[in-house]
């Protein structure tokens, strides 16, 4: 049997919209993933700790209110500091084109905008999971 993939869908920052995150969570579930959903108002430390305790293969983090520029790199740093090196990190939400290189340099594997195709997110995830 194929190994179950686990994904943490997290929201960073203070905006209260989590519709996008919920849609992504459901898409993962319908593709057979086990999705840990943590709700809104998450600080980077909380998200990192949840990713560690839940031992997920994928961390899909979304932010709408511009939190990505500081909070996402912060999150990746915390994970690195804890020695987590086999986690696929994806970012989603409204992220300006010019911020994408910074995020990728910080360790985010891919960035998906609001209009991203769900099947494409799933496909990318499956192909890029780091753990065997």
């Amino acid at each position: 049997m194929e190994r179950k993939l686990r994904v943490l869908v997290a929201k960073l920052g203070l905006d209260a919209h989590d519709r996008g995150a919920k849609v992504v969570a459901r898409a993962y579930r319908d593709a057979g993933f086990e999705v840990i959903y943590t709700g809104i108002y998450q600080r980077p430390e909380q998200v990192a700790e949840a990713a560690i305790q839940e031992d997920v293969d994928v961390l899909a983090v979304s932010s709408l209110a511009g939190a990505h520029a500081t909070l996402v790199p912060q999150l990746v740093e915390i994970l690195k500091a804890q020695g987590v090196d086999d986690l696929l990190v994806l970012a989603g939400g409204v992220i300006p084109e010019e911020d994408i290189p910074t995020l990728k340099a910080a360790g985010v594997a891919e960035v998906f905008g609001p209009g991203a195709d769900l099947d494409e997110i799933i496909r990318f995830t499956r192909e890029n999971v780091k753990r065997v």
Partner: protein
Amino acid sequence: MDITTLLERFKNGDRRALARAITWVENGTPEAAELVRATFPDTGRAHVIGITGPPGAGKSTLVDRVAARFRKLGKSVGIVAVDPTSPFSGGAILGDRIRMQRTLADPGVFMRSLASRGHLGGISIATGDVVSLLDAFGFDVIIVETVGAGQSEVEIMGLAHTTCVVLIPGMGDDVQAIKAGILEIGDVFGVNKADRDGADRTVMEIEMMLDLGHMGEGGINRWPADAGAGAGAGGPQPGAAAMQRLDRAGHHSAEEAAGTADSPRSASAHAAERHGTANPGDISWRPPVTKTVAKDDQGVEALVERMNEHLQFLRETGRWEQLKHRDAAAKLRELITARVVRIMMERAGSAGDLERLTNAVADRSTDPYSAVDEVLRKHLGR
């Protein structure tokens, strides 16, 4: 990470190692058995508490508050929460962390979400082994939240020392709840959402049902007095303070259960005052009912006190040791069954018997019972 490194880090208290160990056990990887083997000597210490009840009753919210309360009492807490796997996709949304944000910020708490992975009964196949790992890691209290189905979560009884059934107002009078057997599995009851109308009535109705079962035959109580007599006879005596309270009037009101009682009662006093006996083996446990408002952190202290009293009851009456026996027997049966089935299927399969007999049963040239007789005769020598 290889298993030696993992075990070393696990024993040094590394939470990432614990998390990875849980994953291996959950996935039944080849290392899983070795993990259980290596950590087993360190198990058997934690107080395992099951939280079960219908969907949306507030179980996760309550777990958050109960965990926080145990932390205040100086205990470290491991939490496992099980949510259902979708039968259509095999995926799952595990959302219990949402309601546990408060306690999850505490480094003395570790929480893991599990999907039921097709197993019915409220928990997943691996939940028992996951609890073992948390136990070995050193958590004082382990809380297991079952799938909220409100019907068939009996399996939690086989895993927890103390099972807490969470109900909400407007359910107590629902004959279904009683029919579904949910009253039989509780060691302690919480009537959550007590901020809603009808909480007192629900408490009263549960109390009535419990008393009916407690006094009648085939009772609701899973620890009738005689059940523990053998093991309890050699057990320690209840504390002096507890004994002194034995002659206290044994009135058990909803208010008392809701935590407004003046003095804390020991488990044995609690039980004995209803039963009128001082022999620990003869003491039975009448499940207490406590009102809570998890969202406002009300009644939680009292509920945790009842849980601790139940633990004390188990220890004082020798039932704690009995439970260990029960767990060991169940685990052995489970593993023997799994292995023997695998061995037999392998042997019958590779000898071609499985396919031949399957065809024979399908075309009615033999029947399933005779087919199995043949397999056992040939491959088991009987």
